[in-house]
């Protein structure tokens, strides 16, 4: 169905879904508004006071009416709930083959990194027709990644990764806004998402190449920070091997297992003693303050590249 005026462009697969739900809500709202306004207006005129000594019959209500106007609204709201929850659930499950982009928000700009190493500030170029998954974190306060044309929004929180995804359905240039108040220049933390034809996107990616993919930069960082001294490829060091780690289930000391997703990798770098792998000692130092969030993302991508592709259910952190 087409779009009504006063709605933004529909540029993702979610947009028409959200707008259809909107139309339903609008229809219900307009109906009940007209009903109530109409009834009030009619009664107010028809039963206006004609003499100061009028005394209407006392009426005390009717159970049937009360039940009617409780049950019908309840039924309608349950439809609204289910419909909305369905969209929300789908928005929380990025497809396994989604293209991965990393986002770091900071006061007051968006830093975006493609896997191939291409970095952007306040702009995101993506190809048409495939799902795009954003893994995001903040360097300072809470921000929120909002693209009205896609109808998506997700808070970007320091200390953890949050995920949003969308599949663009038309090319063009679409507003990107920070939607969680973050200080002085909150309203300047804006940019654009550029959706391009796949061929144009490939050209864009090739041009101005920095050369190193995110994983390659991560590999270099891995060496520079001396991670490779302990995390040896052949599992001979004091620390667990990172080959095939991403996506697997890790047994922890003291019982329990955890899925090695992006969030787990980030935590292991910044708060290594939060979870100790079974059979190992708590000897890893923390890299908090020694590596930026972007550096962490590069390391994460590198470690991901040590696992066979595609990773089983890349259903992301949070």
């Amino acid at each position, binding site marked *: 169905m087409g779009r009504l005026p006063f709605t933004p462009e529909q540029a993702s697969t979610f947009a028409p879904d959200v707008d259809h739900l909107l139309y339903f809500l609008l229809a219900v709202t307009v109906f009940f508004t007209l009903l109530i306004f109409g009834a009030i207006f009619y009664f107010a005129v028809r039963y206006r006071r004609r003499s100061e000594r009028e005394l209407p019959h006392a009426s005390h209500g009717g159970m049937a009416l009360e039940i009617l106007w409780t049950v019908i609204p309840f039924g309608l709201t349950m439809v609204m709930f289910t419909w909305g929850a369905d969209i929300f659930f789908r928005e929380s499950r990025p497809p396994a083959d989604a293209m991965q982009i990393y986002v770091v928000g900071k006061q007051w700009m968006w830093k975006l990194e493609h896997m191939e190493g291409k970095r952007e500030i306040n702009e995101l170029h993506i190809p048409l027709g495939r799902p795009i998954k954003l893994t995001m974190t903040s360097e300072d306060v809470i921000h929120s990644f909002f693209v009205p044309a896609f109808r998506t929004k997700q808070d970007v929180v320091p200390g953890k990764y949050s995920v949003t995804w969308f599949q663009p359905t038309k090319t063009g240039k679409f507003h990107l806004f920070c939607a969680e108040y973050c200080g002085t220049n909150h309203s300047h933390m804006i940019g654009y998402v550029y959706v391009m034809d796949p061929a144009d996107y490939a050209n864009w990616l090739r041009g101005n190449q920095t050369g190193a993919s995110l994983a390659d930069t991560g590999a270099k960082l891995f060496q520079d920070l001396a991670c490779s001294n302990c995390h040896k490829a052949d599992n001979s060091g004091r620390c667990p091997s990172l080959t095939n780690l991403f996506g697997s289930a890790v047994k922890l000391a*003291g019982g329990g297992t955890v899925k090695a997703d992006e969030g787990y990798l980030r935590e292991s770098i910044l708060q290594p003693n939060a979870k100790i792998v079974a059979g190992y000692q708590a000897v890893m130092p923390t890299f908090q303050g020694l590596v930026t969030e972007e550096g962490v993302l590069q390391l994460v991508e590198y470690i991901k590249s040590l696992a066979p592709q595609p990773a089983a259910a890349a259903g992301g952190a949070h």
Partner: protein
Amino acid sequence: MASHSESLALREQFDTEAQQKEASTLGMWIFLITEVMFFGGMFLAYTVYRSWYPHVFAVASSSLNVYIGAANTVVLLCSSFTMVMAVRAAQLGKRNAIIWFLILTLVLGGVFLGVKAYEWNEKFVEHHVPGAGFHFEGVPQQGPAQIFFSLYFAMTGLHAMHMVVGVGLLIFLIVETRKGKYSASYMTPVDLIGLYWHFVDIIWIFLFPLLYLIDRHLKT
């Protein structure tokens, strides 16, 4: 036997003394419920962080002196007992007994606060006070350890503040009792301040195991 205090305390908005007593009692209970909600927020934060960092909390908890904590618990329980005895004495109209039991309660409350101050000083010496000089040797994760101690100080501090208010109320009661204000037919303030005192005691009964006894039964 018409005593001096019989009808002097009836406030003009009430029709009868019974109504006044019921209203005051209900008011105190509602106030205590607001206190439950107030402390409840802290308990929620504690619950969240303990579930996130169970090991850190256990180690930090075991660094607290459980013997002093237990002794303080006994002191507070005894003070609730002496408070009950004061209320009973008031019901029987025994002025001297009221005063003695209130003084005992006051002393026990004071002992509690004194021991608390000693404990806090110990924490200060050990650098377990959150802030710039914080350092806890038991675990590598300093952040979560600091969160434990922050909650420790916030919760015991809030509790101590309530005890100080309680001590002030007890002094007020002692002064008023000496003036002969209370008798078998009017002892509502003794009753209600007793309620408040018991409530502060109960909060401690929850704080003690949550702060001092995490995983104590496990020998690591």
